[in-house]
């Protein structure tokens, strides 16, 4: 079973995870949390309390934008999509994280741990 990553790292990587996920498609809050949990085998998890303040913060900064949309059953959900500004943030952010993990790997051999 995958061990839970420490909360600080979860927090630091949360925005990257959301940006990366929304780069492919528009998703609503529950789906975002669910997909992140599934794709990382539970290493990254979002609760309602951790997800929405971050989403609203990202929305305020202009990285994502939310819009209400009804599904086929007539249920209203607030979908989030990446803005052009958010899309622009994603590539440098990926590079920054890659460099960080490479550096950490060189130092502590984390990829073989």
């Amino acid at each position, binding site marked *: 079973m995958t061990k839970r990553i420490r909360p*600080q*790292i979860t*927090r*630091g*990587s*949360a*925005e*990257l995870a959301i*940006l990366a996920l929304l780069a492919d498609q528009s998703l*609503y*809050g*529950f789906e975002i*949390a*669910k997909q992140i949990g599934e794709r990382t085998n539970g290493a990254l998890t979002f*609760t*309602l*309390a951790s*997800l*929405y*303040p*971050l989403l*609203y*913060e*990202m*929305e*305020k*900064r*202009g990285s994502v934008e939310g819009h209400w949309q009804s599904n086929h059953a007539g*249920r*209203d*959900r*607030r979908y989030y999509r990446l803005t052009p*500004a958010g899309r622009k943030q994603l590539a440098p*952010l990926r590079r*920054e*994280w890659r*460099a*960080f*993990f490479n550096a950490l790997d060189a130092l502590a051999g984390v990829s073989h741990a």
Partner: protein
Amino acid sequence: MPDWKELIRRRMQPPPVAQANEVIEELSTHLEETYNDLIDRGCAPQAAFERTLQEVDDWGVLCRRISRTRLRRNPMNYRTRRLWLLVAVTWLGASLSVMLLQPAGRLYPDLILFYLPWLATLPLACAAAAYLAQRADPTNDRIKRLWLSVTVTWLGAMLSLMVVDRADHPSLVLRRPIPVTFSLPWLATLILVGAAGAYLAQRADAPRKTRLVVATSPALLLGIVMLLLLPWRVTVDGYPWAFTFFALDVENCVVVPGLALLLGASPFLRQRSANSSLLPEDDANASMGPTALLG
């Protein structure tokens, strides 16, 4: 099925200050989907309910965090606010200085083309500044500081200009290759304007490039306006005079004033911005670079 909306309404007290219904609607949908998902995976209703409630440890904290983001929500992004607000202010300041320096009752005929673009853009600049000030977040201390600084700077600048206007204008005359006269008080004022623009941009934590653009924006914008007016000048003055006059005006109104603005801005261009990204300082915690983890 639990009434999730009612549950959130009871627990989020006081409710988020802005768009409370929208937030409650969205959060209740999330809780409902979490609950249904647990039921679908074979959880008993009571256990599913209890596990769903674990999505939030402290409703008070959640409410405060959401309120904070909603209260400070701004449809204008930070870059727009920082760059264009400052550009508009600096442009407006330079326009005012030109008008105030003009001796009462006299208009330099050879500078008519210079004054016209300034005057034409003035209402636009005023409208832009007013619009941006209105859109700017009223709770943002940085913007408050900025407007206070602008007011103080411009009160001082206008007072000094009124004094300058009553005296004869000392001029700097260059005779070669073509005689050109520069109004020294105007250039001196532009040094102050450039310094004020760059200083304010620095206070708004703008990166060096933005400070440079803000400080020299009057000259840059004037250059663009002149370029746009060039076809009209060709029809009025004819070729090749239109290009000669254009080159002269660019020198008088763009290059030299630009250098004056740059001179004023230079002390504020040396220092590296503490926050070189486009994100505001108070968003640094939410920034997701790996360095955020190490702080």
